[in-house]
């Protein structure tokens, strides 16, 4: 009935079955998290409140993406939190029952119940002492599910509001566990320093089978809460941008090596193949794709491998999304509103194979596991978004047929008085074994018709 041979059998065979059976969910999620195995039902959008628009508050918006639903492509729910907190990133706990969302301005963390009614998330807890409990970490950014815990990257600190910061762990129940400060040149915490250690933070991703954790680096609160134009005209402010990535011993949570990656490396995406020991990032200020890889001596290295757009006029790349097979990398850039697709099947020599203007400005991109559906949002930061007519705020959905993006729907977040949409995450009834309700009528949702 139960045998050791059986355990060996599934160990050896199922990784290969996996490649052919998985067909949904995002490729950027923590590997410790429950996954959607069919078509997603919802896109959740963590949205910055805009002053004078609707209730002016940050909110978690639910958009129905069930193709057979009468409310397909429509906003079917939104739940507001108190005030504007500079809503930015958020993600699920490992069991996907809760969604944690952060505010970069107030450092508050909002925890939503997603499982009771996946169409209608409910705010169940607010953590408002994150700075105090963490020992001074400011600006909770990436929320990364670990077994029974959330790993949260900071962007800043409460001493000088600069970029020196840490990683903070909380239990799934919302209790503080520990803070890991990033290494600096003055306090290397045992890490090898390639050129310098700025101690800055931004994103985090883990490659479990190599016990490797990678972090990237952005800038502190003094910059991200200041108008972008003002920052770019201030030579001192421009010196306060990250130029490092840190390779960590994940199990020990110890920094091992500080890589020099100038130009502000932001999102990190590991390739998912069982023998692909590398990740990509994009640098916002220098508009390059960087490869972070284990060399033939098993040493982790960083190398710029491609330009994004015209190097003389960098378009400010802000988000990337890797395909499940590791062959394609989508790159969003804010200034030109473009998404570019790179063939990264040779990770050392990415080649751009497609591009499309999505809007006047562009920020986040999420793709389904099968790579057939892509979702885009427009807002970067309240102080950094474009002004006037160029300040379009939207969620757009596209199908990718292998040659071009086909627009499916647009939700205008200003017209619907919602705010500035930032990070997206996918949801499904099936995660909680909940039978979807019978088709809703179209008047229950709101959509911008094209």
């Amino acid at each position: 009935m139960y045998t050791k041979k059986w355990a060996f059998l599934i160990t050896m065979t199922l990784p290969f079955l996996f490649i052919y059976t998985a067909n949904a969910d995002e490729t950027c999620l923590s590997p410790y998290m429950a996954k959607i195995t069919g078509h997603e039902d919802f896109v959740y959008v963590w949205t910055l409140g805009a002053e004078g628009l609707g209730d002016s508050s940050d909110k978690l918006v639910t958009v129905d993406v069930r193709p057979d639903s009468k409310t397909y492509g429509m906003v079917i729910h939104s739940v507001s939190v108190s005030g504007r907190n500079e809503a930015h990133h958020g993600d699920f706990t490992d069991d996907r029952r809760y969604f944690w969302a952060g505010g970069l301005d107030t450092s508050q963390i909002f925890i939503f119940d997603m499982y009771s009614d996946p169409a209608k998330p409910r705010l169940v807890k607010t953590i408002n002492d994150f700075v105090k409990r963490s020992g001074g970490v400011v600006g909770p950014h990436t929320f990364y599910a670990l077994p029974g815990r959330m790993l949260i990257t900071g962007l800043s600190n409460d001493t000088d509001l600069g970029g020196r910061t840490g990683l903070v762990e909380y239990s799934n129940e919302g209790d503080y566990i520990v803070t890991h400060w990033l290494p600096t040149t003055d306090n290397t915490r045992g890490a090898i320093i390639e050129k310098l250690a700025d101690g800055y933070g931004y994103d985090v991703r883990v490659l479990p089978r190599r016990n490797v954790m990678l972090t990237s680096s952005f800038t502190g609160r003094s910059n991200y809460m200041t108008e972008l134009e003002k920052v770019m005209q201030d030579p001192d402010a421009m010196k306060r941008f990250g130029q490092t990535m840190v390779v960590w011993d994940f199990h020990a949570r110890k920094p091992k090596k500080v890589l020099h990656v100038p130009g502000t490396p932001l999102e990190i995406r590991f390739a998912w193949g069982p023998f692909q020991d590398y990740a990509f990032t994009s640098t916002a200020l220098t508009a390059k794709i960087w490869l972070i890889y284990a060399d033939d001596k098993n040493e982790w290295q960083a190398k710029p491998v491609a330009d994004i757009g015209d190097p003389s006029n960098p378009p400010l790349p802000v988000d990337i999304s890797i395909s499940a097979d590791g062959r394609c990398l989508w790159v969003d850039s804010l200034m030109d509103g473009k998404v570019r697709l790179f063939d990264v099947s040779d990770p050392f020599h990415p080649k751009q194979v497609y591009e499309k203007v999505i809007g006047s400005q562009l920020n986040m991109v999420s793709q389904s596991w099968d790579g057939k559906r892509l979702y885009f949002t427009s807002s970067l930061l309240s102080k950094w978004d474009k002004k006037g007519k160029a300040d379009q705020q939207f969620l757009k959905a596209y199908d990718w047929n292998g040659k071009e993006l086909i627009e499916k729907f647009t939700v205008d977040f200003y017209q619907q008085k919602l705010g500035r949409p930032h990070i997206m995450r996918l949801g499904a009834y099936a995660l909680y074994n909940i039978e979807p309700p019978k088709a809703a009528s179209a008047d229950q949702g709101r959509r911008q018709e094209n």
Partner: protein
Amino acid sequence: MRLKRPVSVFILLWGLLLGAPSFAKDNGLGYTPPAPGSYELPPIKRAVDGIVLDTKGHQQRLFDCMDDKFVILSFIYTNCSDICHLATYVLQQVTTELKQDLMLSGQVRLITLSFDPDHDTPEVMRRYAQAMECDTSGWVFLTTSSHAELQPILDGYGQYIVRERDATGKATGAFMHVLKVFLIDREHKVRNIYSLSFLHSTLLLNDIRTLLLEEGANR
């Protein structure tokens, strides 16, 4: 549209994909693990107690089963088609390696607790341990008398399960769940939680050695 495949299967596949080279090697991690005592395992939360049944059907408190030892607690159900048996298999490796370590042997208790009391009676748990060739000298297999006894334990540890049902609403006997294994110290604090990607005997034992060194330093 409707998902037919259990989410748990996907989690297994995902976990194995990422961890495959490690499991494929003979007891190899695929990397050098951090040395015991070179890192810390800050308490994550309090473990919770509850009323359980051993394989003879005797009612006990879960904390009494822990017996002032370091505890590796896993939640399974015997009808599981995938990850639960793999977890049990890894814990078998732990018991084998424990026997070869005089410092550790006798200080560790393995507990496997079913979250399917309807099917997993004490007798079924006994037969499961026997069929999986588990050394029960330091490893107890438990179940509960009812869902009412079970649920507070699952809630306390954060072990979320969902009973799968077919198109007619009838229970299939399977559960959707994320595999979690808990390392608990003698003060009943959870010190680590392992998913499939990090469920490896070397890491588990190194973590226990780390806690032992911490204990020695605090004396």
